[in-house]
């Protein structure tokens, strides 16, 4: 899973995105909040959505319980 590093911890981008998605919001808002380019956000969200760390509803995303647990574990 590319959103985690070799030791299983979240990448910096994945961590920043998960923190920004503690409340449901759009990816454009995440890009503004994190100062990361939108293309990086989209790629990271795609991976984390597949890994069920995020859920999507009407184009907005939010962290899941699994995502919150992963974030807490680092």
């Amino acid at each position, binding site marked *: 899973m590319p959103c985690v590093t070799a030791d299983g911890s979240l*990448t910096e981008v994945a961590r920043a995105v998960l923190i920004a998605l503690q409340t449901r919001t759009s990816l454009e808002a995440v890009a503004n909040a994190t100062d990361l*380019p939108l*293309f990086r956000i*989209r*790629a990271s969200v795609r991976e984390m959505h597949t890994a069920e760390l995020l859920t999507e509803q009407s184009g907005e995303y939010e962290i899941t319980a699994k995502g919150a647990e992963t974030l807490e574990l680092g």
Partner: protein
Amino acid sequence: METTSEITPLKSVTLPRLDSQVPDFEAMTTHGVLRLSDFKGSWVILFSHPADFTPVCTTEFMAFAEIAPELKKRKVELLGLSIDSAFSHVAWMRNIKEKFGVNIGFPVIADSTRKVASLYGMIHPEDSTTETSRCVFIIDSKGVIRTMIYYPLSTGRNMDEIMRVIEALQTSDQHGVATPANWRPGDSVIVPPPQTVESAEQRVKEGYECTDWYFCKKAV
């Protein structure tokens, strides 16, 4: 999107066309797996280089990094590509940072299977059968190819021209005009020529800088 480890035969090379919709792809880059569609809403300069750790390419990468902040202001992202591995790209980026003090902040595709290079016709066998040529594709925010520039292996790209083309295209889109030879931001632009006799007669009365009915300019 599936990836393949097979090298795509050169016979299947296709060339993209101006004003066509770009084909999407997914590829490993120095920023992880990216799709071209991840850039939707931004302009993209997709460019290929022959090989990592070569002098002309090194100067080009530093030059692209130098114009990156100006491109960013115009909502343009850079996306490089060669057939080298991601490990090679990373090592080269680190080397450029160490030896020249330049940070390469944009992603670079590791196209070792030539999947993307074949899709975009970046390998020109008469130039090199193994390496990608110096291709530049300027793609607009709607995913349409607006400009294609090809340079041979021996000749490094001109960033002034790439910036100029971006500014010309964005000015044309914004104002519905064309730009003359050697146009620079601030210069007058070309008003599209009239298509009918009636509009040709009207044109000279419209207050543009007209040399003749078909040749009118205005400031933007």
